């Protein structure tokens, strides 16, 4: 698969469970070495310049990365300390992230007591402290109710407008991608099936919605695929979030 993402754009990687979206993100965030081929982020090679990439990215995995035994504020403090935020700027940046993500009302609650929407906003806040140039979000709205989902997207949009942060999002929600992403790549069974703006894709495949684009590009519907582990994970996640 070959694709590129322009600075400041909102890019969606779509596909059913098991298509390889998470693996793609793990290669780009330097967690996994590519077995073949290569990739670069902001001009840095993922294999040779991993550290340079880890300095400029924010990454929010699909599963919850907040420490439930710490308060929201302590989680922010912790991630500020481990993502190279200069000591003198920590307080100000935490305050700012709290404002941007609307965390004021639950700053001193333990992570394990927060709702799904609160957790996602807190996670995004912890990923903003190092002022990332690119934010990787793996299924950011899985398990969230429509209101929480909308709130998360509104905040992400604001962020992109204000700071010009590039968003790299994976999802299997086609309508969401259609609404939120400038450009989209559709992935299936480890391959890229199509890419372009939502409008371009609909035009190319002569259909009305992205759901139909997926079917036209892969010959399958999006519900198929996925493994036991994926299913177990997303269910456990929604249970914890719920």
């Amino acid at each position: 698969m070959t694709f590129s993402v322009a600075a400041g754009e909102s890019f969606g990687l779509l596909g059913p469970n098991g298509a390889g979206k998470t693996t793609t993100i793990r290669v780009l965030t330097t967690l996994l070495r590519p077995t073949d081929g290569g990739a670069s982020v902001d001009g840095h090679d993922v294999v040779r310049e991993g550290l340079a990439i880890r300095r400029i990215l924010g990454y929010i995995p699909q599963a919850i990365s907040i420490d439930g035994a710490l308060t929201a504020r302590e989680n922010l403090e912790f991630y500020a300390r481990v993502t190279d935020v200069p000591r003198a700027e920590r307080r100000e940046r935490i305050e700012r992230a709290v404002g941007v993500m609307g965390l004021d009302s639950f700053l001193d609650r333990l992570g394990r007591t927060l709702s799904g929407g609160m957790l996602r906003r807190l996670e995004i806040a912890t990923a903003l402290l190092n002022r990332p140039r690119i934010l990787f979000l793996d299924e950011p709205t899985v398990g969230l109710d429509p209101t929480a989902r909308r709130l998360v997207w509104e905040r992400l949009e604001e962020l992109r407008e204000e700071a010009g942060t590039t968003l790299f999002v994976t999802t299997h929600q086609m309508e969401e991608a259609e609404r939120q992403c400038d450009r989209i790549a559709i992935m299936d069974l480890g391959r890229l099936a199509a890419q372009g703006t939502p409008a371009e894709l609909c035009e190319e495949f002569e259909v009305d919605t992205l759901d139909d684009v997926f079917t036209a590009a892969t010959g399958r519907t999006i519900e198929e695929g996925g493994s036991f582990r994926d299913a177990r994970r997303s269910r456990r996640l929604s249970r914890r979030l719920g």
Partner: protein
Amino acid sequence: MHAEAVVSRAGSAEPLRRIVGGIGAMGWAEIRKLRHDNVDILTRSVQPLLWLFIFGTALRRNRALAGGFHDYRAYLAPGIMAQAALFIAIFFGLAVIWERDVGQLQRLLATPLPRVAIVLGKAGGAGIRALAQSVVLLIVLAATGISIKWTVGGVAGALVLLVFATGGFACLSMILASLVRTRERFMGIGQMVMMPLFFASSALYPLSIMPKWLRVLAHGNPLTYEVHGMRQLLLGIHTGGTLWVDFLFVAAFLAVAAAVAAKTYPRAIL
């Protein structure tokens, strides 16, 4: 141009600063967690106290078991402190698997922290927990009048030795966790590693009463050196072998285990 600037800066003092900063951040997080949930330390203290006051009291007058020392309970105390710390350390591997199942592990690995800082940070967390636990046990020892030599240097030295060894065992546990990867299997492996470590050491009885084959095993066991050093520092028992050898062996164990864990730890996310 930008890439070169970053790489050349990373070549100087940056990695060291990140290692120290990372250990500091993870140690700080562990202290905050302890403050939110301090009941954990107290409930974990029950088991070592049972060993000390049931097992130890039953065999109190047994001089052979105490290597000739007049009170077996006092002789047992450092061994039990080390054992309680070992339990804490081994379960840090379980925490790694838990953090993999939620997203914390992936998240940490995508920060600029060097792998070794993550591993040493976790080891430091285990050390802090073990330290808090040991303070509780020392308070009980003081309150019940068990004959410890209460010197500042002795107690401090013993606690340093305990923290280093616990860090090493936590790294060992993380290595196991990255190999087995599921919680269920880790529970079995954890027991399988922990009990032999405990029995093939001088925690419960001196090396001198062991059969030869067990003594050979005990000589390769970091727990033996940890307990030996603590006994010398807390009780003044000299049974051959000098204190600096104990410190050196435990420090070397921590260094090797941390280096191996830093290599295997990222595998846990797969």
